C-alpha cells in the first residue's frame, strides 16, 4: 500500500473527473444499500450488540443546580437485588464534549455545574434493577455559595465576547440607518432547541486487556476515540469505537458524553462489559442544547431597495468556560450586501446544560430571523420579497471582498417561485380566507456555510473485480453508505452491486465524521482520491494514461483495446488510502450551499393555530451525489424548519435552570400530521472550489431559513408579525383581526 496522495486542497480541482467517468451511477437516485436491514429491524444499533455477560448502568442526575456532592449513600443501594456498583469517579464527565474537540470535557462529577448533571452511575445485573437502584440512591450536596445566573437575560449573567468570533464591522451602520430611504430595526427571539435524535445515547463498553472497545452511538469516531482516551488518560490507539448504524445525531453525538465515559469506567471496575443507555429525559437534560437567542436586526436601504446598512447582533448563552457560542451571524456575513455593517455575537454565562451544536448551528436560528426581517424590509420598501433578495446579492463578500465559489440563490428563488406558484400570492395580508382559515404565502432564502475537513478512506479493488470502501466515517441517516459506493462505482467503472461499503469502525482509516454537512464531501473526496490512485495503477497495467482510461461494468478500455478488470488485476488486489485536507480553497472562496423556501400556511381565524399546507424548497449544493438521499436530507431539514417555526422550544425554570419539558411529550417535534407533502427541487451545479467531487454539503441546508418562510406566510395570511419563535397560538391570537370580518 502506498502513502496517501498529496492531499491538501489548495486549488480547485477543475478536472471534474466524475463527469468524465463512464459508469453513470453518480448522482442517481439509488436506494440505500443498508435499507433492507433498516426496514426489517436487522441493522444493529449501539445498545443492541450481543456482548456476552454485559450488565446495565443507569446514570443518577443531580437534584441541585450548582454545588458539590457531599455524601453518596451507597450502602442501602448496594444491598438492593442485583446491584453491583455505585460509581462516582473523577474521570466521569460533567459536560458533553463539543464537536471536533478531540479532548476531554470538564470532568469529575463531585462538582455540579447545572441542574440534572450526572453525578453517579449505578450498575446492576438487569436494567430494571439498575433503574430502581438509581432512583433510590440518595445524594447529599453542599449548595454553591456563589450566586449564579439561570436566565440569559438576568442582570447577574456575565456577558462576554466569544474568543473565536470576531465582530464584523464595516463603514458606519448608524449613519446608514439615518440616511436610509427605508429601514427596519427589530428584535427577535428564538428559544433553545434539542436535537432529540430518535436513538437515545447508548454505549456498551468492554476491555480486552488494556484495550477499550465501545459500541457507542457517535457521529465523529476519529475524534471520539481521542476524547474517551483523554478522559481515561490512556493512549487513543488503545480505544476502538464501533458504530455502523447511528440512530440520528443532529449534533448531539458529535462529541462523547456522559454514558460512554461512565460505561468505560464501570467496565474496568467490574471487569465485565457494561451497557449504559440514557433515558429520553436524561438525553434532554444532559446533552447539548441549542442556545436560545435574542437577535437585533437592522436593515437600511436606498430608495430602490438596495441594502446600504446591515446589523445583526445576537445574545446567546452557555456555561462558564465553554468556547462554543451559537454562531448566529455566520451566513449573514456573506448573504446580502451593505458595506455599512455590524455583526456580532455575545454570550451570557449561565447555569444550564452545555450549549453546543444542534443541526446547522448558527444558520438554523440566524437565518430564520434574518429572513423574517428581510420580509419586514420588503414590506417597508414596498417590493416583492423575492425581488428584494435578488436585488441584494453582492458580487463579493462585503467587507472581506472574497469571491463566491458558486451561488445558486437566484436560480433557487426563481425556480422555487415558479414551481410553488408564487405569482398567486397577494402582497397585502388578510386577502384570502377559506372557511375559518386565513391563507398566506411566505418566502425565505436558504444558506449554510460549506466546509471541507480532514478525511481518509481506503478503497480496495479486489482481484475478483469487486470493490471495498472502508472508513470510520459514520452514516447517521445521511446516506453515506449509498454515496460512497456511488463515488467508488463511478470512478472504478463498477455497477453499484459490485461495491461494498464498510463504515463506522475506528480500526478503519479515519473519515471526517458526520457533522457540519461535511461528511459526504470530505470522506467522499478521500474515496475519490483512493480510486484515482487505483486508476493510475490500472492504467499502467493497460499501458494507458489514467485520464484516458475508460472503465465501465468492470471492462477497461483504452485506444480500442478492451480488458476486464479481473484480467488486469491478475489475482492481486489493489488497495489505496485516499485523503484530503482543507487547504487554501477554503480561504480563497466564500463557500456555501444556497436555496429558497416557499411556504403556504393556514391560520385559524378564531384560535390562531398555524398549519403548514404546502412547502417547496429549491436547493443548490454543487453536485448531487445521490438524488434520493440528498432530497431526503432537504426534506428532513424542512421538517425541522416546521418544528422551529411552530412548536419546538426548550422551557427552562429560570429559578434553577432546570429543563421543564424534558421529553417528547412536552418538547414538540413535528409529527406526521404537521407535515404536508413537501416538495424539493435539486439544482445541479458544479463547485470545484468546494471539493474535488464538485459537491457541497446538504445535510443542514434544508433547515437554514425554513422557519422564516413560515413566519412570513403567517404574516401574509393574517397580518400578524410574530418576532418570537415558535409561533404558538398564544402569540398569534391576541393580534388576529376580527374573525367575523370577511377577507379584506
Amino acid at each position, binding site marked *: 500500500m502506498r502513502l496517501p496522495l498529496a492531499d491538501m486542497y489548495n486549488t480547485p480541482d477543475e478536472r471534474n473527473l466524475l463527469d468524465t467517468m463512464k459508469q453513470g451511477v453518480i448522482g442517481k437516485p439509488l436506494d440505500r444499500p443498508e435499507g433492507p436491514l433498516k426496514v426489517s429491524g436487522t441493522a444493529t444499533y449501539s445498545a443492541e450488540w450481543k456482548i456476552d455477560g454485559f450488565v446495565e448502568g443507569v446514570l443518577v442526575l443531580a437534584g441541585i443546580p450548582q454545588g458539590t456532592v457531599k455524601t453518596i449513600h451507597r450502602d442501602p443501594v448496594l444491598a438492593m437485588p442485583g446491584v453491583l456498583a455505585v460509581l462516582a469517579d473523577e474521570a466521569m464527565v460533567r459536560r458533553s464534549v463539543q464537536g471536533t474537540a478531540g479532548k476531554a470535557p470538564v470532568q469529575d462529577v463531585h462538582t455540579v455545574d447545572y441542574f440534572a448533571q450526572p453525578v453517579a452511575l449505578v450498575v446492576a445485573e438487569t436494567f430494571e434493577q439498575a433503574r430502581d437502584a438509581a432512583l433510590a440512591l440518595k445524594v447529599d450536596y453542599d449548595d454553591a455559595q456563589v450566586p449564579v445566573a439561570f436566565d440569559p437575560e438576568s442582570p447577574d449573567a456575565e456577558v462576554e465576547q466569544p474568543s473565536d468570533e470576531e465582530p464584523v464591522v464595516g463603514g458606519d451602520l448608524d449613519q446608514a440607518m439615518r440616511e436610509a430611504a427605508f429601514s427596519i430595526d427589530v428584535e427577535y427571539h428564538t428559544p433553545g432547541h434539542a436535537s432529540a435524535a430518535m*436513538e437515545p445515547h447508548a454505549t456498551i463498553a468492554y476491555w480486552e486487556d488494556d484495550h477499550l472497545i465501545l459500541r457507542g452511538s457517535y457521529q465523529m469516531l476519529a475524534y471520539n476515540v481521542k476524547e474517551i482516551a483523554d478522559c481515561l488518560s490512556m493512549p487513543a490507539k488503545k480505544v476502538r469505537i464501533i458504530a455502523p448504524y447511528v440512530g440520528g445525531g443532529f449534533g448531539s453525538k458529535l462529541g462523547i458524553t456522559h454514558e460512554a465515559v461512565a460505561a468505560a469506567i464501570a467496565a474496568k471496575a467490574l471487569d465485565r462489559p457494561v451497557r449504559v443507555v440514557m433515558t429520553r429525559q436524561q438525553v434532554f437534560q444532559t446533552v447539548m442544547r441549542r442556545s436560545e437567542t435574542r437577535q437585533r436586526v437592522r436593515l437600511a436601504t436606498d430608495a430602490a431597495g438596495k441594502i446600504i446598512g446591515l446589523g445583526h447582533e445576537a445574545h446567546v448563552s452557555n456555561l462558564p468556560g465553554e468556547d462554543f457560542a451559537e454562531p448566529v451571524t455566520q451566513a449573514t456575513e456573506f448573504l446580502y450586501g451593505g458595506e455599512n455593517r455590524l455583526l456580532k455575537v455575545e454570550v451570557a454565562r449561565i447555569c444550564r446544560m452545555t450549549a453546543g451544536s444542534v443541526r446547522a448551528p448558527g444558520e438554523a436560528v440566524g437565518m430564520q430571523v434574518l429572513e423574517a426581517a428581510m420580509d419586514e424590509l420588503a414590506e417597508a420598501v414596498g417590493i416583492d420579497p423575492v425581488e428584494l433578495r435578488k436585488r441584494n446579492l453582492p458580487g463579493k463578500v462585503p467587507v472581506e471582498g472574497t469571491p463566491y465559489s458558486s451561488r445558486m440563490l437566484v436560480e433557487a428563488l426563481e425556480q422555487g417561485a415558479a414551481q410553488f406558484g408564487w405569482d398567486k400570492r397577494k402582497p397585502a395580508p388578510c386577502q384570502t380566507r377559506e372557511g375559518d382559515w386565513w391563507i398566506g404565502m411566505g418566502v425565505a432564502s436558504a444558506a449554510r456555510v460549506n466546509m471541507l475537513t480532514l478525511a481518509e478512506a481506503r478503497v480496495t479493488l479486489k482481484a475478483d473485480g469487486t470493490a471495498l470502501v472502508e472508513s470510520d466515517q459514520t452514516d447517521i441517516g445521511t446516506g453515506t453508505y449509498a454515496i460512497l459506493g456511488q463515488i467508488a462505482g463511478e470512478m472504478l467503472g463498477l455497477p453499484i452491486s459490485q461495491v461494498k461499503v464498510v463504515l463506522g469502525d475506528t480500526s478503519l482509516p479515519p473519515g471526517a465524521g458526520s457533522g457540519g454537512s461535511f461528511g459526504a464531501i470530505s470522506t467522499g473526496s478521500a474515496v475519490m482520491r483512493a480510486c484515482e490512485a487505483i486508476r493510475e495503477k490500472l492504467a499502467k497495467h493497460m499501458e494507458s494514461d489514467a485520464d484516458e482510461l475508460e472503465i465501465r461494468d468492470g471492462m477497461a478500455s483504452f485506444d480500442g483495446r478492451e480488458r476486464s478488470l479481473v484480467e488486469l488485476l491478475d489475482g492481486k488486489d489493489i488497495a489505496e488510502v485516499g485523503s484530503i485536507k482543507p487547504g487554501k480553497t477554503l480561504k480563497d472562496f466564500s463557500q456555501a450551499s444556497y436555496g429558497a423556501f416557499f411556504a403556504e400556511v393556514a391560520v385559524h381565524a378564531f384560535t390562531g393555530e398555524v398549519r403548514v399546507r404546502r412547502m417547496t424548497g429549491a436547493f443548490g449544493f454543487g453536485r448531487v451525489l445521490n438524488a434520493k438521499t440528498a432530497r431526503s436530507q432537504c426534506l428532513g431539514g424542512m421538517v425541522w424548519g416546521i418544528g422551529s417555526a411552530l412548536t419546538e422550544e426548550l422551557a427552562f425554570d429560570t429559578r434553577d435552570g432546570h429543563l421543564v419539558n424534558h421529553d417528547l411529550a412536552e418538547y414538540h417535534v413535528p409529527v406526521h400530521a404537521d*407535515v404536508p*407533502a413537501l416538495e424539493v427541487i435539486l439544482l445541479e451545479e458544479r463547485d470545484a472550489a468546494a471539493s474535488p467531487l464538485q459537491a457541497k454539503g446538504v445535510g443542514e441546508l434544508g433547515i437554514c431559513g425554513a422557519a422564516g418562510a413560515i413566519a412570513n406566510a403567517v404574516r401574509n395570511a393574517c397580518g400578524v408579525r410574530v418576532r418570537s419563535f415558535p409561533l404558538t397560538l398564544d402569540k398569534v391570537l391576541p393580534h388576529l383581526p376580527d374573525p367575523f370580518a370577511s377577507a379584506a
Partner: protein
Amino acid sequence: MVSSTAMAVVNGVANPLPADPRRTLLEWLREDLGLTGTKKGCDHGQCGACTVLVEGRRINSCLSLAQLHDGDEIETIEAIGTPDKLAPLQRAFVTHDGFQCGYCTPGQICSAKALMQELADGWASAQTEDLTARPSPTPEELRERMSGNICRCGAYSNIIAALEEVIAADADHQGTVA
C-alpha cells in the same frame, strides 16, 4: 408472581414470560428474546419506535408490562419480512426512502401495517368525515393515523408516499398485502 406457565407467542414461537413484573413488553422482546428490531426511543409512550402488533393491533410495547400478555399472539418487525424477503410495505419504504437513520422505521412499519387493517375494519379517526362509511386512505387520514410515530429525521413525506403506494396496490383486498 407470574405463573411459570405464562407464555406469549412471538412471531409464531411460544416463549415463557419474564419473572420480573417490572419488565416491559419492549424490554422482554429486546433483551430476553433478542428481537432488537423493536426500538426504544423514549420508554414512555411518546414516540412509537416500540410499536408491535398484539393480537393484530398496534401498541406501544414500552407502555405494557410483559406479564400482561399471557396467551397473546405478538408480531414484531422481524416477522413482517427479512432483508432477503421484504414485505411490500418494507420494500416501499426502501424505494421511497421512507427513513434516514432507520431508528423509528420498524415502529413506522408496524404501525402502517396495523393502520391498513384499521382502515379495512372501518375504524374512524379524527380526520374521518363520515363515521358510517369505510374511511378512505387520504393523505390526511394517513398522517393522522401515523402521528403516534415520530421520525426525527423527518422522512414523513416519503413514509406517506410509501404507504400510498402499498395501499393503492392493495385496493381490492385492504389490509392483506403488508
